[in-house]
């Protein structure tokens, strides 16, 4: 066990540090790209899920259920191998961003839908009575209130998105976990330092997000209690 973390292994890791820095960059790119796509999709679908059209609501339901109930691993493979065997040249980064974005979008859509439903009906009526149209009502009255409610679960979702970038290692995505595994497997078998560092990096990114989300959530609960 002590040999696993021997000094020379750490030195080896330090020599190859640029590999890890680059992989970290890929993971960040995946997370940021995925997040942007997920937010756009999530808000769009979440809002559509509260419209009066039954057909539109059914479509949003299908999207949400489909992508929440199928493993992300499988979604990524489906997309990747579909393209590879279909002769379409596609980078693993694109596969990752699209895969993470669509999957996370389904989760965010549910969060947004929940948030929209939590805004009292009277707010809509009040806005309409002031002569605002649907778009104005949404952007000025409803969404600002919704965002306040859904911020904590969105934070948790963001942390999950960062963790889920590791799924890309399955299709050799060049992300942090993939590089860690590859580097450790090749030659020196220095699993110890490589995995320890990677684990710490993930923790340092995700812990502040989940911690803040939980704190904010608790604060909101207290706030709500005072009003009631």
């Amino acid at each position, binding site marked *: 066990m002590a040999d*696993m973390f021997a000094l020379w292994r750490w030195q080896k890791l330090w020599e190859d540090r640029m590999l890890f820095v680059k992989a970290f960059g890929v993971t960040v790119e995946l997370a940021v790209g995925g997040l942007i796509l997920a937010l756009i999709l999530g808000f769009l679908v979440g809002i559509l899920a509260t419209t009066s059209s039954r057909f539109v609501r059914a479509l949003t339901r299908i999207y949400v*259920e*489909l992508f929440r*109930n*199928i*493993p*992300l*691993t*499988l*979604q990524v*493979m*489906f997309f990747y*191998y*579909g*393209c*590879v*065997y*279909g*002769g379409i040249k596609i980078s693993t980064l694109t596969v990752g961003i699209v895969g993470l974005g669509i999957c996370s979008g389904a989760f965010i859509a549910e969060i947004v839908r929940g948030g929209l439903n939590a805004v009292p009906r009277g707010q809509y009526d009040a806005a309409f009575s002031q002569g605002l149209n649907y778009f104005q009502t949404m952007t000025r009255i409803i969404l600002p209130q919704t965002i306040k409610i859904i911020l904590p679960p969105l934070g948790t979702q963001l*942390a999950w998105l960062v*963790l*889920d*970038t*590791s*799924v890309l*290692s*399955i299709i050799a995505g060049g992300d942090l*976990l993939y590089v860690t*595994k590859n580097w450790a497997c090749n030659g020196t078998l220095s*699993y110890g330092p490589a*995995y320890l560092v*990677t*684990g710490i990096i*993930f*923790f340092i990114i*995700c*812990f502040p997000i*989940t911690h803040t989300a939980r704190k904010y959530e608790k604060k909101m609960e207290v706030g709500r209690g005072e009003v009631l």
Partner: protein
Amino acid sequence: MEIINECRLLFTSVTVPTLLSGLLLSFKLAGGILLASLVSGTIFALLKTYAGRIVGAIITVYVEIFRNTPILFWITVCFIALPVGNQYIRASAGLFLASTATICEIVRGGLNSIGKGQIEAGKSQGLSRLQIIYAIILPQCLRRVIPNLINQTISVFKDTSFFGQVAIMEFLYCSRKLLGTANKYTGHGIGAMDAFIIFGAAAAVYFIINLLLSSVMRAIEMHGNKGKVVVK
């Protein structure tokens, strides 16, 4: 028509049993991990809530570490680092540890939602601490968190798809392998259609199973609400 023909070539009496045995393995692993982590997660939650500061702090650290690092990471690390057990146990350990952390948080939420009056009522009846936990708190708590636990069941079942990464022959691993050797069965090169058929079938299986699980959850939730008396 071409698709049906391709399906017939791909899903034969040779390939389907392999896929099914993979699915069965996924079930077994998910079930075992779930049961084990339900027990350990509940114990951790009880310790965190009732066993004093130091134990609570240690469990908090454990939970935070496992909830803020990827599950695939832990599966790989445990698979490599564990000195004992066969490949299944070593692979399952990572998911078990992560699932324990999640279930601990779920059950803790349930414990916190139970009113102080319940404990006081138990004490006034002369029950010991263990009896109060076992007979009064836990049954109410677990009933309340059933929906979250079923969500966790779905998560764990989905996460068994990571096991292919450490060469466990679970369902997705078998599907992927079938795709890799598809030309053996179809007689021509592997095309996009093969990928769509095989992964589409796998997706359908995951989808149906998880949908069943979540409808069970909804049914239980409805059932629970029907009998519930709201005390204010």
